Every structure is written in C-alpha cells, then in structure tokens.
C-alpha cells in the first residue's frame, strides 16, 4: 500500500539483474548469534548498560554496506556482521548512514563502531584502532571481451577508474602511473569518482578502459551489470579490512577482537559472508591493530 496516491513503487521491487540482494535465497539472520556473558563482562562500563550498539557506515558500497529498498535501512555483510557482534554482546545494532568524513570523529561518542570497509594502513592506524575482519584484494575489470585489449602489464596511457579515496587510487594505480612515467611512457589517466556506480557505468559505457576496486566490489559490479563486464587478471595485494574503534577506547577494541574471533569459530561469520557471495574474503583470525606492510 502506498502512502501517496499516484506514486509508483519501482524502488520497492528487487533491482533488475541483481543477484546479491537482501532477503535472497541464502537468508540468514545474524541476530540469532548467541549472547556471551563473559564477553559482556569485559565491556567498558559506559557500554555495559546501553541496549544498543551504534554503527556508523557510509552506505554506498554494495555489497558491504548499502541501503535497502526503503532507501533508509542499511544492509550488507558489514551490517550483518555488526548485528552478530551486537547480539553476542546482548545488544541491538543500530546502523546509521553517514557521510564518510563524519564517521571517525564521531567514534566514541555517537558511534561505537565504524564499519565501512576500512582498509587498514599504517597511516590510518595512527588515527583509530582497527580489528581486522575481512580480507579484500584488488580486482580489475574491463568490458566484456576486453575490446581494447588491456593487459595488466600495459596500463600506461589508459583511462582507469577508481573510487575516490580508496587504496586503489592511492597508492596502487598512482604508483603504476609513476612507474609508467619513469619508464618514459604516458601516465595512466586516473579517473577518480566519488561513487563506485559511476565508475561501473562509465566502464560499461566505454569512457574508461578499466577499473580497479576492492574484490567484493568488482564481483558485485560484475553481477549487477548482467554480463557486460569481465575480470582482468587476478586478485592481488590482499589487504585486511578492519572495524574502526576510537583510538582512546582500547578496551572496547579488545572486546571486539574477541567477539570477532568467537563469531569466526562458531561459524556465524562464514554464514554471513556466504549470504553475500563473498566467502573468499574470509580471514582465519581477527587481530587488533595488525601489523600491515603498507
């Protein structure tokens, strides 16, 4: 039933060609994860009495975090993971859509956890605590049939789309570009866009030659564009993504590390990733502030 007469409800239908949609075949309810009183006891005092766990997430990154049909409810494997964490701690997860720059400053006050596919880097580790929970590499895609005959060895002078602020943009592709220049070849024309969907659209449209993104994103793009794109090369540079916790809230970060490891061992973790077709990004153990090479 529509609230407004004369309105249509296309937005309420499953997106055409979408395979990774909430409520798909592999439906799994992460809130069924069992409560763990021992872990609850470890929580910092301020969090113990709260009924909710507040999550900040930039919900424009399918399939990790995006908005459901109503345009307001965040969904995705990060969100499910948050729900499982909250359930373990006897709480309810409340995910908030947030613009990226506002997530980190609000950690510790407005949000308890930031879950927005944060790739862990040394530089970033100075600003927040990370608990690793997923392993994503970089995966490239080109148009179906690779009409421009792109190879990973010869990207110089080509137009490559990346999402603004990702590790693909900086340092990955930018370093490749510098290498091109150093070798006397034309630099890579890096097209950096705010939305991943814009990049995918341009690749389908042919204004860019290739795109580089986190592997789950690339997989999702392949699935959603109905066979217009194909993978280029293999996953590389596998890097861990982390749950962000305020730098001065180490006790909470330690609890989250333990909760993640519990979810990994009891299988909840794997069920969530399978539900979102991303089981290959699973990690063996979650680590607090892992040593990272880059």
């Amino acid at each position, binding site marked *: 039933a529509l609230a407004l007469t004369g309105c*249509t409800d*296309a*937005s309420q239908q499953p*997106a055409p060609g979408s395979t990774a949609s909430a409520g798909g075949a592999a439906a799994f309810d992460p809130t069924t994860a069992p409560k763990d009183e021992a872990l609850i006891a470890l929580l910092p005092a301020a969090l113990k009495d709260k009924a909710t766990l507040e999550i900040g997430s930039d919900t424009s990154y399918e399939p990790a975090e995006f908005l459901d049909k109503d345009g307001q409810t965040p969904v995705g494997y990060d969100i499910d993971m948050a729900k499982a964490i909250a359930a373990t701690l006897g709480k309810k997860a409340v995910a908030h*859509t947030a613009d990226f*720059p506002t997530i980190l400053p*609000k950690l510790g006050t407005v949000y308890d956890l930031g879950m927005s596919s944060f790739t862990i880097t040394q530089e970033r580790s100075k600003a927040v605590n990370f608990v690793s929970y997923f392993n994503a590499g970089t995966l490239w895609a080109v148009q179906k049939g690779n009409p421009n005959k792109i190879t990973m060895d010869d990207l110089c002078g080509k137009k490559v789309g990346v999402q603004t602020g990702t590790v693909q943009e900086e340092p990955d592709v930018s370093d490749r570009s510098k290498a091109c220049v150093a070798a006397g070849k034309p630099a890579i024309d890096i097209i950096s866009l705010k939305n991943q969907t814009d990049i995918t659209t341009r690749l389908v449209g042919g204004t860019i030659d290739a795109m580089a993104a986190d592997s789950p994103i690339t997989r999702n793009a392949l699935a959603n564009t109905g066979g217009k794109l194909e993978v280029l090369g293999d996953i590389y540079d596998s890097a861990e993504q982390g749950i962000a916790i305020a730098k001065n809230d180490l006790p909470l970060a330690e609890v989250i590390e333990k909760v993640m490891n519990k979810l990994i061992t009891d299988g909840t973790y794997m069920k969530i990733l399978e539900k979102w077709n991303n089981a290959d990004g699973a990690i063996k153990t979650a680590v607090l502030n892992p040593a990272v090479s880059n």
Partner: protein
Amino acid sequence: MRSPLGGSQPAGGDIDLIKAVPVRHPGRWVGAAVIIIVLVLVAQSLVTNERFRWDIVGTYILDVLVIQGVGWTLILTVASMAIAIVLAILLAFMRQSDNPLFRYVAWVWVWFFRGTPIYTQLVFWGLVATLYPTIVLGVPFGPELLTVNTSILITAKVGAIVGLGLNESAYLAEIFRAGLKSVDNGQMEAAEALGMRRSKVMWRIVLPQAMRVIIPPTGNETIGMLKTTSLVLAVPFTLDLTFVTNTLANRTYEPIPLLIVAAIWYLIITSVLMVGQYFIEKHYGKGVDNVMKAPVMATAAVAAAHAKPTTGTDGSKEGGKE
C-alpha cells in the same frame, strides 16, 4: 506630407491611431533561428540518445521514495530560508547601526559564514553533539542553570535546518544591504521628516522599495538552496531528493536516469518558484515598473476618448480653488 486627421479638432474626426511596422532585425532573427535549431537538436538528442534510459526515468519519476524526497527537500528549503531571511534583515539593520560593535559582529558573521564551505559547516553541526556533549546554560563563572544533552537538542533535522539557515543568512544579508542602498536617500528623509520612527521608515518606506531589487537575487538564493539541501547528508540527514535518487542510482547502476529524475523535479520546483517570483516582483514594482508607458491601443480607449468632451474639464484643475 499627409495629414491623417480631418482637422485639428480631436473630438470631431476619428483618431487615426498609429500602427507602425516594427523595426526588422534580420540578423537577430538569423541568430534566434540558430539558437532554436541548437535547442531542437539538443532536445532531440536528449530524447533519442538511448543512454539516457528514459524508460528508467519514467519508472522512478513518481516513485514513492522520490516524492517523499521532494517533500523533505521543500521542507528543508522553506524552513532554512525562513530562518535566513529573519536573520538577514537583522544583520542588514545591524550593519547600519550606530553601535560599532553591532556593525562589527554583523560583519564577522557575514565573513565567517560566507567564508567557510557550507559542507564543513554542516559537518560541524553534525558533530556538535560529539564536540560539546552537553550545553550548559548558566551565569558565566556562576552556577549552572540548565544542562541539556546536545544530541537531544540538535537532531539531524534541526542541525540541517539551522546549519543551512545560518549559512544562507550571511548571503542574504549582503543582498538586503544592496537593496537598502538602492533606495534614494530622499525617501528616508521624507519619511523621517514626517516624524516616522526609524523602524517604521525601514518597514514601510525603504524595504518595500528595496524589494524590487532584493527579489531577483533572493530568488537565486532560494533556488540555490533547493540544491544545497542535498549537502545535508553531512549532518547526516538522509531523506532529501538528491540522497534518495543517489541511493536508487547505486542500487540500479543507472546513475544517469536517476540524475535526470532529480533534475526534472528540481526544474518543476524551480518553475513554481519562478512563477512566484514573477508575481512578487510585480507586486513590489507597482508605481515604478507597472506604470503604463505605452498607450493601450484598444479601441475602447479611443471610444472612451471620443465619448468625453474635450473642454478641459478632465484636466486636473477642478478643485484648484477652494
């Protein structure tokens, strides 16, 4: 040279009204034709270019989420413009105040809010609760009277509206200042000489005349605000038109048609606003813009003229002697 009238007796013969052929400007018409052709081509290519996916535009243009987004965008625009206009009038008057501190504060206000990006300001409104978890009302260095939890006071909605309103007030203040400047000084003197108080002079004499000049740039700002509301995501406020269409675009991997959906809605609202602007301008132009400059060519006027005797009684002398 022919004399078009039977004689110089105006009331006698028919008046041979001049119906002159307008000046021809072939160059202009060629230019206009070129413009028309360009417009047609652009329109045609818009409609026929399949990349625009008009079918998807059609699917979503009346989508319930989109309509809700339109509603929220309108609410944000109206509410923040209302705040901005009130503040701007206050600021424009403060700029004219005798109190240098008031002038200075108004200047700093305009400087700060015009000078920093609205996005940054909105981020800060979103962060107020983080930066200042409680707001304490009290005597400085004295007892605290009231402690409020900021996140209760400044919800996303309030933050968005206040943030947009404060920012806009700085821009509008400049527009109002320019408008007040455009009114001839003699007007203020005449009103003051009649014993009207400063505030009366402003409200009844100066401001109504300034409105002619204030309305068009204020229309600009309102229409601009319509689009600026999309930045409220920073607060975060996630119900406005742009956010909704962006979300749909992300879901469907079809950003172009959904940008078009948003653009069509913005165009519709803008059109309504422009019609409103036209009538407001007309209202405030009375006595100045609306004074009949060209004769009404209607035969009615001529007939009326013929009907009246021309014996000077319709001059303005009747009451000349008491």
